[in-house]
């Protein structure tokens, strides 16, 4: 018995998994679904990718237990399922989708919708919208975050980068800014019509606000050394800038242009994130000689340390009264380090790990705070991962190309 306990404990401790396999609960609250593909004339590659995206959407919602079999007709026994999702995907000049939801117990079609998107390459958004609608029809908590754009920057060569729009799975990608060094994209409004980014193409880094629908852009600020927009709250933004060569966090009212310096430590202060409704912020600083997560009121001077573990905690995000951060848990500063993502309350309590293997960085909350995005690296491969905070389900999608520099969604 003792050996069995030790074995089980060891298996748990060294299991090579993230949160998804460690915790399986609430199975009964999820709807069991089978998926039947009725598409005609779609290439096997696209068809397969479509099905994978559909499965991922259902899984990360936390509300469905999807059968992974790619059924092409109703020949199988579906009596153990609650619902059948039947779809017909077609590609002509545009991408079209018909989705039907069939209740197995009554064998009745309870929902049917048609979708169309002019650009074929955007077909992943058809899937996301359809799953979001099915989820809403069955009265589950909203998963509308899956319909949102991800925006990220990545280096392409020395002093060269590009800013890219994608869906959350990164199956849809579109370069929107290329040429030169343009970094740190950050959505400027909830509807994702405008974004902030920093141009490093002149002597002085300059922050612009770009309308992605018409290409117009306005200059927001410039600062010698560095300039990054870290967070947005209406017309106010938190930026890291260095007018005197000293990187500090400022709040800028983009309407009035008024700048308010929020930090004055002589070391490094970066990555300000509004927290607790916007009266306070968390940020990364290094008063102890390494990067760590701190918190301060926007209107006061006292600073509190939030994290008391890890060798280097240099990335964080906040939503409401929750924070996520990445923590280096190995001594070496180099490539084989283990970085894990942790979730905690905004006062630093109730800390729990969300990942357990590899290098996990850039944790970012979804727009509703229900899901955390992160970039995972293991060996020579990397992926973008999502953790549903309610049931700790995860999905990951492989990342190709250069390392992601910064992202927002």
């Amino acid at each position, binding site marked *: 018995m003792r050996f069995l306990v030790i074995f089980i404990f060891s298996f748990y401790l060294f299991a090579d998994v993230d949160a998804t396999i460690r915790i399986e609960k609430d199975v009964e609250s999820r709807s069991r679904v089978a998926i039947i593909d009725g598409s005609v004339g779609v290439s096997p590659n696209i068809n397969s990718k479509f099905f994978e995206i559909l499965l991922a959407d259902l899984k990360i919602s936390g509300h469905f237990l999807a059968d992974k079999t790619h059924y092409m007709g109703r020949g199988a026994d579906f009596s153990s399922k609650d619902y059948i999702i039947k779809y017909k995907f077609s590609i002509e000049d545009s991408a079209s989708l018909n989705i039907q939801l069939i209740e197995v117990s009554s064998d009745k079609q309870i929902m049917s919708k048609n979708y*169309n998107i002019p650009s074929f390459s955007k077909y992943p958004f058809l899937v996301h919208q359809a799953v979001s609608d099915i989820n809403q029809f069955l009265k589950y908590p909203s998963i509308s975050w899956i319909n949102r754009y991800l925006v990220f920057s990545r280096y392409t060569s020395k002093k060269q980068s590009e800013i890219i729009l994608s869906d959350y799975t990164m199956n849809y990608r579109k370069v929107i800014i290329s040429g030169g060094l343009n970094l740190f994209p950050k959505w400027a409004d909830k509807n994702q019509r405008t974004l902030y980014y920093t141009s490093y193409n002149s*002597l002085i880094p300059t922050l612009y606000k770009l309308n992605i629908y018409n290409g117009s852009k306005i200059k927001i600020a410039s600062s010698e050394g560095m300039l990054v927009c870290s967070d947005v709250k209406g017309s106010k933004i938190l930026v890291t800038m260095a007018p005197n060569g000293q990187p500090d966090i400022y709040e800028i009212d983009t309407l009035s242009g008024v700048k308010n310096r929020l930090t004055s430590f002589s070391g*490094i202060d970066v990555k300000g994130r509004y927290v607790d409704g916007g009266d306070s912020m968390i940020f990364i600083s290094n008063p102890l000689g390494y990067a760590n997560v701190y918190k301060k009121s926007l209107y006061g001077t006292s600073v509190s340390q939030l994290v008391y573990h890890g060798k280097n905690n240099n*990335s964080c995000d906040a939503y409401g009264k929750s924070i996520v951060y990445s923590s280096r848990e190995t001594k070496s500063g180099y490539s084989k380090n283990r970085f894990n993502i942790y979730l905690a309350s905004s006062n630093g309590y109730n800390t729990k790990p969300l990942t357990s293997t590899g290098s996990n960085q850039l944790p970012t909350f979804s727009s509703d705070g229900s899901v955390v995005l992160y970039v995972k690296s293991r060996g020579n491969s990397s992926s973008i991962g999502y953790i549903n905070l309610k049931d700790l389900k995860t999905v990951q999608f492989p990342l190709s190309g250069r390392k992601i520099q910064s992202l927002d969604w």
Partner: protein
Amino acid sequence: MKSKIFIIAISVFFIGCSDKKKVQPSNVTNSSETVTIDGGVDSSNNGGSGGGNAATYNNSYGGLDGSSGGLKSIYFEFGQYSISSDMQERIAQNSNIIKTKSKIKIEGNCDEFGTDEYNFALGLKRAKVIKDDLMAKGVDENKIVMISLGESTPLCRETTDECYAKNRRVDFHIIN
């Protein structure tokens, strides 16, 4: 352009009138979704000789250097922004050259470890400590422009400690 937008708007209206579900990203139609901006380069404010592509480097440190104009790069320990004693001679040599120039740019760089904003701040702290040291050696503050490039400008991409060390540096470029 206006007629194109009008046609698209009309199309979107009729699509919206059918029984088809309007998918949000489809609203990003042809004329607006593919906003491709050509780098945002302000040619009137470009960085002279130091603002463009990396130069060919003659003055090497372990075979690589990122500076130009006879100036030498300064290297740093992992995660640090203090100047080590073995770099003092290089700074002294650089200061003598810089005093003869009217303007220089110093660029702070990092290795690939750490993340985005922190690396840019670390690069800037490295540039700032060099600027302060140059000023202490008599260089006019107004001659110096600083910028952090984070990890965007590696000189070496091999996965070795020696290679990473070559990317933790401050480069110098003469503007005029």
